[in-house]
């Protein structure tokens, strides 16, 4: 199990477009990936679950991965959040 804490920095939070990029990235990996925020843990490969968390700018999230490529998965997703999903 690998995990990493990141803060959402892009202006509009994880709305439809960033959420879709996030899920697209997550589904590339074989590991089971979860996202923990606001006291809930959800499947990081479900766009609906991620969007239903309502992740706005400044929210702290934890990315957890468990499986053969867990380290790469967490790194890729963390980089994505850190890059503000290419916005701004």
């Amino acid at each position, binding site marked *: 199990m690998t995990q990493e804490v990141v803060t959402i920095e892009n202006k509009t939070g994880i709305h439809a477009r960033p959420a879709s990029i996030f899920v697209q990235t997550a589904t590339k990996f074989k590991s089971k990936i979860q996202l923990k925020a606001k006291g809930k843990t959800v499947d990081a490969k479900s766009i609906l679950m991620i*969007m239903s968390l309502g992740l*706005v700018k400044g929210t702290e999230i934890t990315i957890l991965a468990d499986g053969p490529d867990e380290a790469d998965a967490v790194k890729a997703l963390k980089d994505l959040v850190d890059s503000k999903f290419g916005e701004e």
Partner: protein
Amino acid sequence: MAEVIRGKGVISGIAVGKIMLAGQNLDGYLVHYKAGSKEEEKEKARAALTAVAENLRTSIERLKKQGMVEQAAIMEAHRMMVQDPMMEENIMAKIEETASAPHAVLKAAEAQAVLFEQMADEYFAARAVDLRDVGKRVAKFILGVKEPEIGDEKVILCGREIEPSVIAGMPTENIAGVLLGSGSTTAHAVIIAKARAIPTIVGLNKEDRIDKIKDGDHVILDGERGEILVNPSAEERARYDERIRKQQELAAHYAALKDLPAVTPDGIKIDLMANIGSHMDVDNALSYGAEGVGLFRSEFVFMGRQDIPNEEDQFKAYKEAVEKCGGHLCVIRTMDIGGDKPLPYLNIPKEENPFLGYRAVRISLERHDLFLPQLKAILRAGVYGKAAIMIPMIINVAEFKKVKELIEEAKLELAHEGKSYADNVQVGIMVETPAAAIMTPVFAKYVDFFSIGTNDLVQYTLACDRGNASISHLYNHFNPAVLRLIRRTITSAREAGIWAGMCGEMASDPNAAVLLMAMGIHELSMSAPSIPRVKEKLRAVSSIQAKEVLSDVMKMEDADEIKAYLQKVL
């Protein structure tokens, strides 16, 4: 022999094409849906999810190729919602409850949408729209309702209800005709079709006639007779070819007039402008040679929604229209709504006599929460071209003075908010009550223009409901009383040095146009496809001849006599 289906033809012309089912309101389809066993329904839902995701993938590729990256990203989000594990789980659970795949899909999407709506953040709350859209897409697939896909072939759109955005969203050259289940001739879809001269037949819900028309059927649509020939034989097709040829000849003849001005042989120029219902109609109006917009019916911005449209939404619509008019004028009529067109957020009680009731400017002057944002939006749009404000249903000068005060207030607010606006937007009134027409010499001191709304002016002057078939013989714009009110209005404008125009049905009657030209009118505004025929007439009759005709007409005592006389001499 092809089967002939009859409806009510509302926009004439003959169209030939392939049927594309395009119902957006699914209620009619849901009622007729026959569900199988729960297992079958689950299988249908799964298959639909896969197929819709695949269709979306194709669209996304196309959008990317066209460089529409943002749209592609949104579609990508939709695709992921369709393939979301939670979505499928919820749909399966709903099938257990409802035993119907399309109902289950819509309910699952709705439940998720409601969850989104409850979120505090406005942006996420707004994503509920995406979910409902996705739900509809999948349900449509199961119900066999096609998404309008733009191909090379001309299509005839057919549906129990068709959302105006579907027609508006397709290029005119791709839509040959429209077949509508509901019988309303004032449905937004019909009004948009009218502005684009697309042959249209309505009222096909009667006896479920619309169900006889299947997706992909080849049909001939005769908008004049209200007849639809499904899968016609070669001989039947040939019979229509001659009529289609004549129609094309006329269209080509009119197209040749497009860039010519509406000038009489002795040099009197009349501005011919278009009546539009949406900012999306402007391009089409210009293609008929319209020199701007003489009537933008802003109530469409208010209809079909659950809340008051805000200043920003209105601004976008007006700005686009004003911008597209280029250097020409774009006259925006403020909200003309009353008890006959109820809006959920206005709470107007049902009235005995809505045409004489709480409507139009009477509402605007009381509901500043509606009126100010509209005025501000128009003033802001004025920055992008030449906008004008037109006030409907005015009966006295005091009302107009109040309107002017509110316009000043709107300007002050805009200045405070640091938003740019146009200071020189013309403000005029629609002359559509006998009271206003009689008082035009006084109004002329305050207004920048008059635009005569004949539909209501005839109705109010003659105390004659224009929708009542049993008294339709009384409703006539050539009635001498009506002609006198019109002449008075135009003369008042001329004497005060302001302009007078007309934006009612009468303006699209070529013979009437000649009389109006003789009276000294400056501008005529009509549904765009009527422009060429009016222009042709004006270019053929000199103002000297027209004045002689007018002088004869003003001596006549009867509307039918006038009409017959004009037909004879013009």
